[in-house]
């Protein structure tokens, strides 16, 4: 009923009038001309929803319309429908004035003609089977062979238009690279492509497209499009917006896209991978698709309410992504326009309503960093990792028994009397994440400069002539360190989370780690517990011994389970994974042939002396904790796991959310008015099902079996599904032309737009399915067409077809937010091309969290992670990375099938002033100086030409060249008179042979080039 209040003229009408209206000589086409009018103006009271049906008349069904005599086929003047829309009587006129949707004269005329021509109805085009199409024969243009071009040209020729000429090869090189990989092409490749294109353009394009499709960056580019639809993010959403680990799902998508996983398989694994027989790990990770829903962690929430929100989101997302349907409209009542009933909505809902998760993390799976990218992992190595994990599990089970043995051994142990004699070791090699930040001092200690926020020091130690029973890490103060150190934190503290020893590449098991002093809660023992969340720190506080100071020498002794034989080279890794910048500032390694006596804590001995049965709870807890801390066997198992992982080539493991259904099915009811608290008990529970207007689900072989998500997934990718193939190819088309063949890419229902090229859409859909749902095949098909390859320069066609629906030219398209950054990264040469892994934190402006409830500890990465592609930037839904949202990235609260493209001053400020962008401009400036020597006028011109190739893949025009020569000279002079300013704007490393003013002036020039419309546009 309330839909009556909505005033909206159908989108179809707008370009219905522009391009698709029946020409007066043509017959009226029901789907193209009539359904949009009836749907928009009449169905709300004379459509599918029985609750709001007026006078028992349905205009969406011919039978009803004829029976009620609203329509007399062949006799418009005798039809009540025509009489009622033409009457002047405000009581009788249709649509009633109160719904505020008057018919236009053109619409009335169309309805009249349609009735006169027999009032033939047709099913809604998108629900009809995909027609098998042949590309049209063209009148004279016999040279045109590409089927896509034949479809496009046939419409153009009707209008007296034709395709634009092919874009120049420079534009093509950049267009194809941006479209397929999202990175700018390297200048050499541009030049070789141009040469090839001049020889044979078809051959050149075909080879270039193949090359780009084979690039691993293709999976990032097209994976990102898919992640929009999956509403992927790295946080839970709502107010608390805690971090979540879903990046393994992101990695799965990238790999699947790169491998060209057929889209049907791609679908089945994401919707229902968990229900396939014996799913492997990757398949389970794929089900993360529907675990990307929000979780509300706020205190006092009703989990059932937010579980319901998640279910609604899963239904609506599935409808939007695969079927281009607005199922959400049927959540509260039967759809007003499309044949989807309120009950059918909850039949879809019932597929999803079985999950174990209830507004929480629930089921997860362990995945190692890089694991999803392993190519043919050695089964032996996989087995070894599984065995090592099994061993750990066994040890966990036998913990109580082992603790008893341990207790006894301590009580019975004789006091050790060994005396350690420590010898300093000079490191043979060392490295750090942040680059060249460690240096050896005269006393063989290492001094660190600030490096990566969470440093990882790797130190190699030469072999010794005697065995090594223990090693000692000494922390030493130094005047260069904050408060003299020994740490790099502003107060001189450290948090050392893990220490790993390797002998000839094999992990060495440490029995005990003993500190001389530890901050309460930060015991030295935490460095060998394998847990990156705990560590050793040295601040003083309640409970530390009197007189101890933080800013002084400290040490931690590592006693090995077995003495290391003489002649062994050792490698040691120090991790600082907990707090940013709490890295060690100065340290030295020492070894001893004899182990030092282990100091037994008096408290431990006292507790142990109490007979087990008489111990207090506090004692029991304390002893269990001590045992866990000193559990050598467990530590050995952890070391074995770590070794097995590194043999396999994977990194640390995380747990990521996956789908799992409950053992006991949950009953689903229709929710009255969409309210989850109001179940429709009258109609009773509903079974999983699909809308009747679409193909039926296959009959169940076992009638007792309950249908599940796997049935839904298989159904979605049936070859005869009228929607999935059309919707999918339409979205791919949209990426290349800025608009789909069906403009309303997420509404293929009756309120959606009629396709501009219906035959082409069906041909593409059929071709896509016929080629095994191969995306790469589809891309190549489109990219080799003249339609794709034509110029985007505006021409006379704009007068006849201003909105370019008929494609007489390509579109200039502003690249997506991520690609803005990626383009700058690739032009600057700073891009770190690593694929996948945990999210990263590039620099972001201060003040992002001034407005959020929760402040994320955003520590800009130093080292390679600072320069990763933007799709790896950690995404917090409540406070996203500003550059992304400024350039229209959605906040991933719900499915996004197509992004908005805006053009605002805040975008300009970001490109012009953002620290991260400036750094990349400076990187490009430095690169230009490195690549082109000299400072005379010729060199400067060459350098500008080079910059153009890097940024725009083309040479500059004379005007551009002169403008930039003048600009650079002026900046050079200006910086030369301002040493401080030049110093502030130079790249981090000024290439040799150039002064600061020159370097700064080229940074300024690079900045200008990265700020043009062309830089962020695919032309």
């Amino acid at each position, binding site marked *: 009923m309330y839909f009556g209040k909505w005033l909206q003229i159908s989108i179809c009408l707008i370009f219905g009038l522009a391009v698709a209206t029946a020409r007066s000589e043509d017959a009226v086409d029901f789907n193209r001309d009539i359904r949009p009018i009836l749907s928009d103006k009449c169905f709300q009271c004379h459509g599918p929803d029985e609750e709001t049906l007026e006078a028992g008349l349905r205009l969406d069904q011919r039978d009803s319309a004829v029976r009620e005599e609203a329509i007399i086929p062949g006799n418009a003047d005798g039809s009540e429908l025509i009489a009622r829309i033409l009457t002047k009587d405000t009581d009788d006129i249709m649509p009633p004035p109160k719904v505020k949707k008057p018919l236009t004269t053109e619409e009335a005329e169309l309805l009249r003609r349609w009735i006169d021509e027999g009032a033939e109805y047709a099913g809604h085009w998108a629900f009809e089977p995909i027609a098998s199409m042949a590309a049209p024969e063209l009148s004279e243009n016999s040279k045109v062979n590409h089927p896509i071009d034949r479809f496009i040209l046939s419409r153009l020729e009707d209008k007296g238009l034709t395709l634009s000429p092919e874009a120049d090869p420079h534009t093509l090189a950049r267009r194809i690279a941006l479209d397929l990989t999202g990175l700018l092409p390297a200048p050499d490749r541009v030049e070789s492509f141009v040469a090839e294109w001049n020889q044979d353009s078809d051959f050149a394009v075909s080879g270039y497209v193949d090359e780009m499709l084979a690039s691993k960056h293709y999976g990032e580019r097209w994976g990102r499009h898919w992640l929009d639809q999956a509403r992927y993010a790295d946080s839970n959403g709502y107010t608390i917006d805690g971090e979540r680990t879903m990046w393994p799902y992101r990695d799965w998508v990238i790999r699947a896209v790169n491998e060209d996983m057929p889209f049907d398989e791609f679908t089945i694994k994401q919707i229902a991978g968990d229900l396939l027989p014996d799913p492997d790990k990757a398949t389970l990770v794929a089900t993360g698709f529907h675990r990307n829903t929000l979780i509300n962690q706020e205190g006092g929430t009703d989990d059932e309410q937010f579980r319901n929100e998640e279910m609604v989101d899963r239904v609506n997302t599935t409808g939007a992504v695969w079927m281009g349907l607005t199922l959400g409209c049927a959540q509260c009542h039967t759809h007003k326009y499309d044949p989807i009933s309120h009950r059918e909505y909850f039949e879809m809902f019932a597929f999803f309503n079985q999950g174990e998760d209830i507004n929480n993390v629930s089921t997860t799976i362990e995945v190692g960093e890089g694991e999803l990218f392993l190519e043919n992992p050695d089964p032996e190595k996989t087995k070894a990792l599984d065995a090592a994990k099994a061993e750990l599990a066994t040890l966990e089970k036998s913990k109580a028994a082992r603790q008893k043995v341990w207790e006894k051994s301590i009580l019975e142990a004789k006091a050790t009397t060994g005396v350690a004699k420590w010898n300093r070791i000079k490191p043979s090699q060392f490295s750090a994440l942040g680059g060249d930040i460690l240096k050896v001092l005269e006393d063989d200690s290492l001094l660190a400069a600030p490096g990566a926020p969470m440093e990882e020091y790797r130190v190699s130690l030469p072999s010794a002539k005697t065995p090594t029973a223990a090693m000692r890490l000494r922390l030493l103060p130094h005047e260069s360190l904050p408060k003299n150190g020994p740490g790099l934190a502003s107060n001189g503290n450290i948090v050392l989370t893990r220490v790993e020893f390797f002998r000839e590449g094999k992990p060495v098991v440490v029995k005990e780690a003993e500190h001389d002093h530890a901050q309460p809660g930060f015991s030295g023992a935490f460095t060998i517990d394998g847990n990156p969340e705990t560590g050793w720190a040295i601040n003083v506080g309640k409970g530390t011994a009197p007189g101890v100071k933080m800013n002084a020498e400290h040490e931690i002794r590592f006693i090995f389970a077995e003495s290391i034989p003489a002649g062994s080279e050792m490698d040691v890794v120090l991790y600082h994974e907990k707090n940013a910048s709490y890295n060690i500032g100065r340290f030295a390694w020492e070894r001893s042939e004899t182990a030092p006596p282990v100091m037994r804590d008096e408290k431990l001995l006292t507790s142990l002396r109490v007979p087990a049965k008489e111990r207090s709870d506090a004692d029991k807890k304390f002893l269990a904790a001590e045992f866990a801390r000193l559990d050598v066997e467990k530590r050995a198992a952890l070391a074995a796991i770590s070794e097995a992982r590194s043999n396999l080539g994977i990194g640390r493991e995380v747990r990521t959310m996956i789908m799992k259904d409950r053992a006991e099915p949950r009953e689903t009811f229709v929710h009255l008015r969409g309210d989850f608290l109001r179940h429709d008990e009258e109609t009773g529970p509903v079974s999983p099902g699909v809308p009747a207007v679409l193909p039926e689900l296959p009959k169940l072989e076992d009638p007792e079996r309950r249908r599940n998500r796997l049935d839904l997934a298989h159904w979605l990718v049936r070859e005869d599904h009228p929607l999935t193939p059309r919707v999918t190819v339409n979205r791919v088309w949209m990426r290349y032309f800025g608009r789909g063949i069906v403009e309303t890419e997420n509404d293929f229902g009756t309120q959606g737009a009629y396709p501009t090229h219906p035959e082409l859409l069906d041909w593409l859909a059929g071709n896509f399915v016929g080629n095994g749902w191969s995306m790469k095949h589809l891309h190549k098909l489109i990219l080799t067409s003249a339609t794709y390859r034509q110029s985007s320069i505006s021409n006379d066609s704009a007068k006849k077809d201003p909105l370019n629906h008929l494609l007489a030219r390509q579109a200039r398209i502003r690249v997506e937010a991520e690609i803005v950054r990626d383009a700058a990264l690739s032009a600057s040469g700073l891009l770190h091309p690593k694929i996948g892994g945990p999210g990263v934190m590039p620099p972001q402006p201060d003040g992002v969290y001034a407005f959020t409830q929760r402040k994320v500890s955003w520590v800009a990465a130093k080292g390679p992670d600072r320069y990763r592609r933007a799709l790896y930037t950690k995404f917090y839904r409540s406070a996203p990375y500003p550059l992304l949202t400024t350039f229209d990235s959605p906040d991933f609260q719900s499915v996004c099938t197509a992004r908005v493209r*805006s053009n605002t001053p805040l975008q300009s400020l970001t490109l012009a*002033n953002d620290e991260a962008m400036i750094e990349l401009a400076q990187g490009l400036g430095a690169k230009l100086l490195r690549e082109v020597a000299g400072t005379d006028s010729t060199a400067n011109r060459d350098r500008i030409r080079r910059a153009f190739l890097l940024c725009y893949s083309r040479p500059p025009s004379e005007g551009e060249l002169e403008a930039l020569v003048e600009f650079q000279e002026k900046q050079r002079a200006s910086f030369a008179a301002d040493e401080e300013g030049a110093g502030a704007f130079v790249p981090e490393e000024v290439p040799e042979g150039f002064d600061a003013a020159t370097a700064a002036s080229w940074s300024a020039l690079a900045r200008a080039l990265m700020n043009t419309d062309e830089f962020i546009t695919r032309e």
Partner: protein
Amino acid sequence: MDSFLQQQTRRHFFEKCGVGLGSIALSDLMMRDGLAAPSRSGDPMALRKPPYKAKAKNVIFLFMAGGPSHLELFEDKPKLREFHGQLPPESLVKGKRFAFLGEGARLLGSERKFEAYGESRMQLSELFPNHQKIVDDVCWLRGMKTDVFNHGPAKLFMNTGFQVPGRPSMGSWVTYGIGSESRDLPGFVVLQSGPRGPRAGNALWSAGFLPSSYQGVPFRGSGDPILNLANPDGITGERQRDFFDVVGKLNRERLAVTKDPEISTRINAYEMAYRMQSSAPELMDLSGESQATLDLYGAERGGNSYANNCLLARRLIERGVRFVQLYHTDWDHHGGPGQTLGKDLEKVTQQVDQASAALVLDLKQRGLLEDTIVVWGGEFGRTPMGETRDGKIGGRDHHIDAFTMWAAGGGFRPGMTFGKTDDFGYEVVDQKIHVHDLHATILHQLGFDHEKLTFRFQGRDFRLTDVHGRVVKEVLS
């Protein structure tokens, strides 16, 4: 350059929207939705006439995040004191759900003293002495009602009309509808004070599925008000001008080749960005304000407080900004440490009382109140029952069935008290205003029919008031 721009075809700003509206011109969109077309090419904030006669032009929404207690501030309930410590009548609480309260919560009488003031005889508690000065300028809405009792969803509801994130906020709808008069500042500005940002974060001023140009732009109280506003290190004013000039030159070269009007839009956007770099710091600079004005608000030059933000709100409105929203945290007085109805409530009322009243007085004396709607309130009220935390009854839980807000200026009837609650302040018994009704009423004053200000997303025509809302004509003069 301007004449050059004017030659360009008038093409829309948004090449493609996520809603499948594709390349229909923004102007087409707006005309379709009953809005006037943008008067200037390509600028989403270009001034547009509202479809109906407007009584107000601007809005300042003072958002009291956390949910202020109407029972400590605006509603004297002697019965609540009389029945203090007793169970509430079952008819009131039956079938109700609360965020934290369980069964057996007992009534809590307020310890605050109330008195009636002004010609309107509106009751105010001792916590709001400065509000006495505006008691006859303000329309008191005592019958407010909302649907949700968790902070995040309730704040979203008050701002967007929906409990889930992803919908446009009121400021976005308004600027989408009529643009903004300011050429140098964003049309929708958000300010924040208090210990932390409001729950739900940027979803509260999100443009949702509207083009992102309409999202609220947060202005920080200290440092650069807008992200990336300052020139990079080493770039002087002159170098920045050179930079904008050469970028403009390169853009015009490309425009001549491609003839794509989108480039004109970008040239425009860069020019506005350049102006913003000077206009935003000028806005924040209070050196031109008299000491008397600063004292009226309790603001300080260089300060970062609710009082400063109220003064900034006036300055924003003076500069033509359409919609200003202030968030002040934290009003969530459950009774735990830092959350008592005693000194903790006193602290936040002291932070807010004087400046809120000052804003109304200042706008009035400058003749700006006629055109500007000032709204004061939070996402919900607080329960008549006390909440026990740490063993002491010192607070109240979230309450959705009745709470108080106020509105001044922009055609709201001054000195009127609208809305009656029962003896416990639990339910509205007369003159109820649901959140949707408040939205409908504000839009009405700005010249919109809330049922017609729509945007199609995922096949549905969405609006701020969803499928509800009534213009509460009774509170309008």
